[in-house]
Every structure is written in structure tokens, then in C-alpha cells.
């Protein structure tokens, strides 16, 4: 990093070309501090958030658990769980992956590392303040926006730094063509502050009246998924799948089409959470139509990923990154199609208000987004610390615990939610039966939580090992052998 004056760091200048591999190693190394800090804190909050989720899962089947402790009541644990995994884990993980991808795709070493490091510290401070706020009872009970009013400005400031940084990096980029991942990243980094600011202004600082809040709430909550987590997850998938198997994306045109149709349709989706609610019918109808139109970006993405992978599926055996990312990409297709069906009013009247929705949320945020983040980290971290992951078998354990855990969780919640929903819908059925149908599945969900946490603990152990003593050091800039894909251990599952 050569940063002589402030002006020269926010205004692009040209530099002579270097060898690709040397340049890439330099870029990777330049991202080390901020990216590892974001990853490390993200993993910490993932463990904390999952622990809170696990406790609340068990409390719902054992209501007497810790019931005299106000800060461990279900109504505080659940939002604390959601906000920790969403803003403590998923956002920093997305930022970390986003920073690294941005630097690589712009082909410039990361600028302003200190700004990013301070942003990471401030962000995590905001999380801590917000978490304490929820637990002491200052939560706002507005889904996805529970952090009290004194925590959100901290988060916003931290995030704004990242957005500004993205614009600076974009101006400095050396690559002429903007790769599709950059479209997604750049858009996501700018959409999020817009979403967050709008929602906070209209729901906290200048609260609008009554049900208008519901509309804004779900416009925000759904767009956080659709215009922030999804684009980052897809940016990673669009980069890592071709990169790992060494084959360009099947149809670049489809990928761009997917991007714009996502921006168009996803942004209208939110109101399908309030079908039948106190809103003008056209608002809900627009959301239902947009939800159905989500077929277009989802199918284009699914076809594109599948056609890219076609003939290379054996790569899943030897690449940990690919294994996690393909799992995530497949889940993206499944969760999006499921979401489309859930928005159809006839089905929505059964699944709405039940555990089915919780299953859908975990399919999206865990099976899709979190798995893609894990996969990306398996690729990125070795290139930052300069050494390989210490143990292949532990990576396999991590994968299988995560995969089995999340499939069990989503399966249990989906089935239980359907039975619960049918009981809630049936006029002849009592409320009690809706609880009784759901209970065994809720126990199963609690068990799946343990399995998922097991996987996370394995990953946390691997990550700490990487920070302390990375495995086999290599001197060449690329840390992986280019030809040796058929060594003995690579075939094992």
C-alpha cells in the first residue's frame, strides 16, 4: 500500500501492470486485516446467536425453562437470536466476503484498511449495545428491526463507511469489464443503507401511524433478504463456482438478466407477509404477483449454475468451497420457489402464522446464505493467512453436520407447520390441537439445533487454528496445487 496523500487515495491513478499471480497475492494480502476481523467477529456472534436460538427452541417445548429470568424470556431470546445471526453473523460475513471479492474483482489492493477496521469495531459495538438493549427489554418488537433506537445509528455509521469504501474501490478498479458478481456486490452495498435508513426513519425516529408500519416493516425485512443477503450470496456463487472448477459461467447474459429481474421483482415482495391484513388489496396483490415473478431470476440463476457445473460434479469431492456453495446455490433455488408458492393466497392461508415460515426463513438464511458464506470462507481464509486448512476431515464433519442439521430443521418445521396450519385453518379443530400437532416437530427442531451448533463449533475451531498456526506454508502466491486433483484423499467423502 502506497498512500501518499488523501487526494491520491480517493482519486484513481494508473500503475504499470504486474504479473497476474503476484498482483493477486498482493491484493489478497491487502485484505487480510479487515476481512479476518469481520470473519472472526461474525463467527463469534454466530455461535452466540445460535446458542440463543437453541435455548428459545427448547423453551417453546419446555415453557418452564428459566421462566423467572426476565432477559431469558422467549419474547426477548427470539429477537436476540434473529438479530445476532442476521446482523452479528450474516452481515459481517457478507461484508468480509464482499470486501475480498471487491478488491479481487476491481484488481486493486484494498484501500483504507484502517477505515474498514474501525467500521468493524464500531459495527460490533453496535451489535453489543443492541443485544443488551433487547435483553433488558428495550426491544422494539418490529421484526428485523428490534435493536433499540440508541443502537441503530451506531450500526448505520459503521455501515456507511463500507458503502463509501465500495464507491472508492469501484473508482479505482483496473478491470475494464464489470463482472456480474460486482453488479450484485455494488448494488447490495448501496441498497442496504437505503433500506436501513428508510426503515429506521419511518419506524423509529418519525414513526408513521399504525398499519403503515407493517407495510414498511415488511418492505424492509424482505428486502434485507432479497436486496442484501441474496445479492451477496449470489455474487459469491457467481464468482466461486466458475473460479473453483475453472470454467466460465454458462451464460453471462442470463446472469445479468437474473440480476436486473431480481432487483425488479424482489423489491415488491414484502407484503406477502401480510396477506389478509389491514391494507389496500392492491398492495398485497402487487406483492403476490411480484413473488410469482420471482420465478424468472430464480430459474435463470438455477439454470446458469447447473449448466456451469454440468460435467464437473466430481469437483464436489475435492473442493470444500464448491461443496458448500453448491449446497447453498441449490438451496437458493428451493427456498425461492417455496417462497413463491407460499405467497399464493390459497396456500398462504394455511402456512401463514405457523412454523412453516420459520422453516422457510432458516432454509433461506442458513441452507442458502450461511452455507455460501462458509464455502467462501474456505476459499478466502487460506489465501489471507498463507496456509492450508489444518484438517480435511474436520471440514467434512462441518459440512455434513451443517447439511444434515439444516435439512432436519427445515423438514421438521415444514411438516409441523403444515399440520399446525391445517389445524388453525380448520373451523372444527381446536387451538390446542395446533399446538399438539406441532410439538413433536418442535422437539426435532431443537435436536437439529444441536447438530448445527456442532458443525459451527468445528468451523470455529478450524478458524482459530488457521489464525494461530496455518497448515502447510507455501511460498508461491497461489496456495493450492493446480494439477493435483486426483490424490488419494480427494476421493473420500
Amino acid at each position, binding site marked *: 500500500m502506497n498512500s501518499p496523500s488523501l487526494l491520491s487515495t480517493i482519486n484513481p491513478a494508473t500503475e504499470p501492470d504486474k504479473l497476474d499471480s503476484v498482483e493477486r497475492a498482493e491484493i489478497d494480502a491487502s485484505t487480510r486485516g479487515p476481512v479476518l476481523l469481520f470473519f472472526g467477529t461474525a463467527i463469534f456472534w454466530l455461535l452466540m446467536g445460535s446458542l440463543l436460538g437453541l435455548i428459545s427452541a427448547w423453551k417453546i417445548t419446555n415453557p418452564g425453562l428459566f421462566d423467572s429470568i426476565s432477559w431469558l424470556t422467549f419474547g426477548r431470546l427470539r429477537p436476540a437470536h434473529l438479530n445476532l445471526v442476521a446482523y452479528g453473523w450474516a452481515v459481517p460475513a457478507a461484508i468480509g466476503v464482499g470486501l475480498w471479492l471487491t478488491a479481487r474483482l476491481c484488481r486493486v489492493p484494498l484501500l483504507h484498511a484502517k477505515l474498514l477496521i474501525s467500521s468493524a469495531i464500531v459495527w460490533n459495538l453496535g451489535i453489543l449495545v443492541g443485544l443488551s438493549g433487547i435483553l433488558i427489554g428495550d426491544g422494539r418488537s418490529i421484526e428485523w428491526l428490534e435493536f433499540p433506537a440508541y443502537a441503530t445509528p451506531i450500526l448505520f455509521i459503521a455501515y456507511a463507511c463500507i458503502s463509501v469504501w465500495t464507491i472508492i474501490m469501484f473508482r479505482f478498479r483496473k478491470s475494464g469489464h*464489470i463482472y456480474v458478481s460486482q453488479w450484485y456486490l455494488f448494488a447490495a452495498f448501496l441498497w442496504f443503507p437505503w433500506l436501513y435508513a428508510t426503515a429506521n426513519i419511518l419506524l423509529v425516529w418519525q414513526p408513521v401511524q399504525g398499519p403503515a408500519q407493517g407495510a414498511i416493516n415488511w418492505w424492509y425485512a424482505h428486502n434485507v433478504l432479497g436486496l442484501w443477503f441474496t445479492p451477496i450470496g449470489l455474487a459469491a456463487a457467481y464468482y466461486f463456482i466458475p473460479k473453483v472448477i475453472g470454467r466460465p459461467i454458462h451464460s453471462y447474459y442470463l446472469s445479468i438478466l437474473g440480476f436486473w429481474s431480481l432487483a425488479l421483482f424482489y423489491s415488491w415482495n414484502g407484503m406477502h407477509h401480510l396477506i389478509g391484513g389491514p391494507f389496500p388489496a392492491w398492495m398485497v396483490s402487487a406483492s403476490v404477483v411480484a413473488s410469482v415473478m420471482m420465478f424468472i431470476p430464480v430459474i435463470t440463476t438455477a439454470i446458469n449454475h447447473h449448466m456451469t457445473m454440468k460435467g464437473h460434479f466430481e469437483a464436489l469431492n475435492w473442493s470444500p468451497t464448491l461443496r458448500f456453495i453448491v449446497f447453498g446455490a441449490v438451496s437458493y433455488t428451493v427456498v425461492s420457489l417455496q417462497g413463491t408458492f407460499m405467497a399464493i393466497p390459497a396456500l398462504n392461508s394455511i402456512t401463514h402464522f405457523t412454523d412453516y415460515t420459520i422453516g422457510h426463513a432458516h432454509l433461506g438464511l442458513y441452507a442458502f446464505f450461511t452455507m455460501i458464506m462458509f464455502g467462501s470462507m474456505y476459499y478466502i481464509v487460506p489465501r489471507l493467512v498463507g496456509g492450508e486448512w489444518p484438517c*480435511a476431515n474436520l471440514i467434512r464433519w462441518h459440512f455434513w453436520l451443517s447439511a444434515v442439521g439444516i435439512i432436519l430443521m427445515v423438514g421438521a418445521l415444514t411438516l409441523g407447520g403444515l399440520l399446525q396450519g391445517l389445524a388453525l385453518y380448520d373451523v372444527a379443530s381446536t387451538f390446542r390441537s395446533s399446538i399438539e400437532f406441532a410439538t413433536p416437530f418442535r422437539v426435532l427442531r431443537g435436536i437439529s439445533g444441536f447438530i448445527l451448533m456442532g458443525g459451527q463449533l468445528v468451523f470455529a475451531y478450524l478458524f482459530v487454528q488457521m489464525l494461530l498456526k496455518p497448515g502447510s506454508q507455501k511460498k508461491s502466491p497461489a496456495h493450492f496445487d493446480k494439477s493435483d486433483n486426483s490424490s488419494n484423499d480427494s476421493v473420500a467423502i
Partner: protein
Amino acid sequence: MTAGIILLVFGFVILSGSALLAICWAAKSGQFSNITEGAASIFDQDEPVGVPTDRFPVKNSQ
């Protein structure tokens, strides 16, 4: 309430303005022409098409 509306209008003008500028720029600088070439832009001489770049760590490393 009025402050909220002013912020909304302000935000709308800025955001839609910048997004329109972004699209105009993208069109001018040729982001939408040669669209298929973009797919190859993540490969280079050292990590060319056809070479995988990730695998499980080999056993003897620890």
C-alpha cells in the same frame, strides 16, 4: 410526520438520480456491449480457464 415526508422526497430524488446516472454510465462505457466476454474476466494467465483452484487440504499437512 412532515420531516419524514421531506426525508422521503429527498432520498427519492438522490437515489433515483444516482441510479439513473449509474445506468447511463454503464451504457456509455460499454458494460452492456460484449456482454459475453465478461464471463472470462475472472480468469487470467496464472489461473486460466480449465484449472481448478480449490481442494481439500492434503493429509500430510497435519
